[in-house]
């Protein structure tokens, strides 16, 4: 346990040193707040940008607070996922390229502790940024649109955290297989995109799919109740993430050289 904590400590120092602890929360917050702001200023934006003919009038219904929040969730789903994968891609690849993984592994450290510390540190960072960003977005939504109950906001946030967990586990697992960091990001994004695509194509067979998380979170926001399907999705996502983590440990145990 103390070894795990030492490794975790090292990971967090690493996060601070490469600036991830600053840029990821800030970028996510920017993405988050721009959603309610652009929805709020949409009429002015159209006025300035669109070359509308004289006298044309567009009436845009003011979205409710819940709709704005689910819009923010969809932003996290696209740009956010890209950023998550980019931020996580080189945690292992970098150490393999510069050889410091060998220095760590010759010590009495096993693969569990190594991979666990990486996963926990990344997850903590991403969740921290997501929570900060979502709370800020919620604050703005309450200010500019109809207020959203904090319990609803919190439950959709918890739901969405599972997607982040899944993204981190996928990227770290791919990271144990592939050496090149750009390829890691590419493969994991491709995999995540494939899952989302299959979920939309075959809704009947993919009820358990992690790709449903955003839909479920949106449903939570709009209908304001936990449904049976929400539990299914959460359970399967947590199990899949755990399996991916275990598979990552297995792959690492088989390394002949790092």
């Amino acid at each position: 346990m103390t070894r795990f904590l030492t490794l975790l400590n090292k990971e967090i120092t690493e996060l601070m040193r490469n600036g991830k602890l600053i840029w990821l929360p800030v970028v996510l917050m920017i993405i988050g707040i721009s959603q309610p702001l652009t929805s709020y200023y949409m009429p002015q934006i159209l006025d300035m940008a669109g070359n509308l003919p004289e006298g044309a009038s567009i009436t845009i219904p003011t979205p409710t607070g819940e709709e704005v929040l689910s819009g923010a969730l969809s932003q996290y789903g696209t740009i956010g996922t890209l950023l998550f994968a980019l931020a996580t891609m080189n945690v292992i690849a970098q150490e393999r390229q510069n050889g410091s993984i060998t220095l760590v592994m010759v010590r009495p450290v096993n693969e569990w502790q190594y991979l666990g510390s990486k996963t926990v540190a990344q997850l903590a960072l991403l969740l921290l940024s997501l929570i900060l960003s979502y709370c800020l977005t919620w604050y703005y939504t309450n200010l500019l649109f109809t207020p959203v109950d904090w319990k609803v906001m919190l439950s959709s946030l918890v739901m969405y955290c599972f997607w982040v967990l899944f993204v981190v586990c996928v990227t770290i697992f791919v990271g144990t297989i592939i050496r090149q960091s750009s390829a890691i990001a590419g493969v994991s994004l491709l995999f995540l995109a494939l899952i989302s695509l299959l979920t939309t194509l075959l809704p009947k067979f993919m009820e358990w799919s992690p790709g449903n998380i955003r839909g479920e979170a949106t449903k939570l926001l709009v209908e304001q109740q936990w449904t049976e399907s929400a539990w299914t999705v959460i359970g399967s996502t947590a199990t899949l993430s755990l399996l991916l983590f275990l598979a990552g440990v297995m792959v690492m145990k088989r390394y002949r050289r790092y």
Partner: protein
Amino acid sequence: MDVLNDINWALVAPLLILQAILAISALVSCIKQKETNGPKWMWILLILFVNLFGAILYFVIGRKNS
């Protein structure tokens, strides 16, 4: 220019502040860095003029880790 006066700056200010934090931290890190992937002046220009994505790109691929 009355559109600009319509905007409630108290609402938009946090967004601008966040962008400034991002750009400044990227710049400081870039200048402190001994070597970057690609010429340093290019990264400084990117961070300053490509909003948001310049700084992200710098942090993701511009830093050379020793």
